[in-house]
C-alpha cells in the first residue's frame, strides 16, 4: 500500500473500499462473530472455531469476520449472519453446539432460526 498523499487519494480509496465491501456483502455470506473481551470471555473463540469447522465440513464458502463489542454483553457470544440484501440477523448466547443448526437452517435452507435470533439490522443500514 503506497502512502496516501492527499485527501483526493483517500476519497478514491474510500470509494473503492466501499464498493468492495458492498460487493462482498451482496454476493456472498458474511458471518460476523463478536470478539471483544466480553465475547471472548463468553466463549466466542470456540464458537468461531465451530463455525469455521462446520463451513469446512460442508465445503461452503462464507466470509467469516470478527468485530468488537456491540454492547449487548448479556447476549454474548453474538453471531451475525448477512446474506446479500437480506437483513443482517443476530444470534445471541451462541454455543458451539448451536452452530451446525444455524448453518444448516439459515445458510442452507434460508430459514432464520427464530428462537435463537435476538435482532436484525435491515440491509444497508449498518454502514
Amino acid at each position: 500500500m503506497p502512502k496516501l498523499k492527499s485527501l483526493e487519494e483517500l476519497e478514491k480509496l474510500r470509494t473503492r473500499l466501499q464498493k468492495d465491501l458492498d460487493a462482498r456483502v451482496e454476493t456472498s455470506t458474511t458471518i460476523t462473530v463478536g470478539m471483544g473481551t466480553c465475547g471472548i470471555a463468553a466463549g466466542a473463540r470456540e464458537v468461531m472455531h465451530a463455525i469455521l469447522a462446520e463451513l469446512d465440513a460442508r465445503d461452503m464458502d462464507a466470509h467469516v469476520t470478527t468485530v468488537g463489542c456491540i454492547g449487548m454483553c448479556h447476549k454474548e457470544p453474538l453471531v451475525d449472519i448477512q446474506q446479500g440484501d437480506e437483513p443482517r440477523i443476530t444470534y445471541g448466547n451462541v454455543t458451539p453446539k448451536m452452530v451446525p443448526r444455524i448453518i444448516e437452517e439459515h445458510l442452507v435452507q434460508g430459514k432464520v432460526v427464530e428462537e435463537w435470533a435476538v435482532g436484525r439490522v435491515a440491509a444497508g443500514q449498518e454502514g
Partner: protein
Amino acid sequence: MSTSKAERHRADVLVSCLHGRCAELIPALEEEIERRGLAGEVEVVEAGCRGLCSMGPVLLIQPEGLFYTNVQPTDVPELVEETLVKGRFVERLAYKEPVTHEAVCHYEDIPFYSKQVRHVMHDCGMINPESIDEYIAVGGYQALGKALTSMTPGEIIDEVKKSGLRGRGGAGFSTGRKWESTRRAGDGIRYVVANGDEGDPGAFMNRSLMEGDPHAILEGMVIGAYAIGAHQGYIYVRDEYPLAVKNLGIAIEQAREYGLLGEDILGSEFDFDVKIVRGAGAFVCGESSALMQSVEGKVGEPRPKHFHATERGLWDQPTALNNVETWANVPLIINNGADWFASTGTEGSTGTKTFCLVGQIENTGLIEVPMGITLHEIVYDIGGGIPGDREFKAVQTGGPSGGCIPASLLDLPVDYDSLTEAGSMMGSGGMIVMDDHTCMVDIARYFLDFLKEESCGKCTPCREGIRRMLEILTRITEGQGEMADLDRLEALAQTVKSASLCGLGKSAPNPVLSTLRYFRDEYVAHIEDHKCPAGVCKALIEYYIDEEKCIGCGLCRRKCPQEAISGEKKEPHTIDRELCIRCGICHDVCKFDAVGVK
C-alpha cells in the same frame, strides 16, 4: 466484474451457487439475452456462493434486487421475457421468503437499543477493528482529511469549543478550552495523550472502544495534535487489556502504512506519530498527573497542580490529555459540525456518553445514551429492570469514587452537573445497579477497601483518611459502631475531600458521603438496632427456619457445612445459632422459601 463496466448496464444478473450444476445455465442466459437484443444492457455475472446452496442455482437481478432460486435452463426464456423485457416478477421461481424473517425484531425496536443514541460506538461491533480498510470504507479518516486540508488549527479548536464537548474521563472539563490553553502555552514541543487507563470496577467502555474501533481514537488524536501543534502522541493503556493493546498496535501500524500517521500526513506537511505506553494497572495512574509520571517512566504518583498539564505536562511540556472516548468524539464533530454535535444532549452537557450497565440488572452491557436521559430510562427501559422482580435500591455512578443515587432520584437527568449536585459524579461511565439485597454500609466499606489498596500513599489525608474511614465502617458492619461514628465519618470525609492532592483522594469519600446522605437510616439500624436491613452484614443477621413452610426435606441439613441444622424427616428443622456461620447456603438451597434472614 469491474465496477465501472457494470455501471454502464441497465441490469446485472448475478448467478451463484452453481457448484458444477447446470453449467449450461449461464450460456443459456447469455444466449437468450443476446436473442432479445439486450446484450448491451444486461450483463450476466457469475458471483460467489450466497450460502443458499440447497436452492441453487440462484439468480439475483440487480438493481431491482429480484431473487430467483432453483433456476433451470428451461426457465430461462420465461425469465428473460418476463423480468428483463417486461419488468415483471416470476412468482414461480421466487425465493420463498420465510415469513418468520419478520418475527425477528429490528435492532431499533429492541428496547435495549431503542433509547440509545450510538454515535461514538456506531461502528463498534459493525466493522472489523483489525482492518483499516473497513474503517475507511465507512467514512473513516474523512474528518482528518477535512481538518488538514480545509481548516486551520484555530478553526478546529473553535469548532470543538462550540460543540460543547467535555472530557469523557469524568471531570468534564471543556475539551476545546483545554486544547486552546495547550496551543497558547509557549512555542516549543507539545504532546497529546489519550487516557485508556480505565480502572473502575465494573467499567469497560474504554476497553470496548479501544478494542472495537481503535482508528476512531487515532483519528481524533491526529486532528487534536494538528490543532494544538503537537507532533508526538501517547496512548496509555493498562496491560490488563491485552486485546485493546493489540488492536491499537495494529491500527497504528496500518495508519503509518497508509501515511495517516508519520511524516507529511495526506500531503499537508504535518507530521505526527503515536506510541502506546502500557500501564501496570494502578488505579491512580488514571489520574492525569500520575499518568504522565508513568509515561515518563517514573513511579505513578500525582503531583501538586501548581501548573496545569496544558502548561507543563509530559516532560514539563504543554500537554493535552483526554480520555479515549473524548478523542473518539472529535472526528464526529469535524465531520458533522459543532451544531450537529450540540443538538444531542443538554445545554451544559452536549453529545452522548457511554456507560457500562452492570450489577443487579437484566441487560448487562455497554450503552451509549444522549446526555440528559434519566436514570429511570437507563435502568428500566434500556437495562430491562432488576432481575427476579426485586426492588431497585440505588445506582452507583462514577466508579469507586462516585456516589450512590437512591430510588427517589431516579428521574435525575444524567449529565455532569446534575450528578455532581446529587453527590456523585459522571466518572468515566461505570454504572452499578443495586437491588434491595444490597447493604449500603457494606457497599461503602467495599469501595473504601478498594481505594485503600489503590491509594498511592503520597499524601496523608488520602492514605490515612481512607484507612480510618474503613476502620469505622468495618466496625459498624460488625455491630460495634456508635452514633458518634457517623459524625467522625463525616468529618474525616470532608477532610480527605478537601485536603487530598489528587482526584482519587478528593473523590474517595464520595461513597461514604452519598450513602450517609441518602441511606442514613441503614447506618442507624446497624448501630442502634444491631440489624442489617438488607441481610448482608454477617455479624448482624440470623438465619431461621419458618416452621410453617419447612416440609422437612432435609436438603439444608445435608448442605450445611457446620452441621448446624437438625430435624427429623418430614418435620420442621431448626438452626443452631451457636454453630451457624451465616454462610447462607441453607437459604440458597431451600426450594420452599422456608429459610429466612432477620
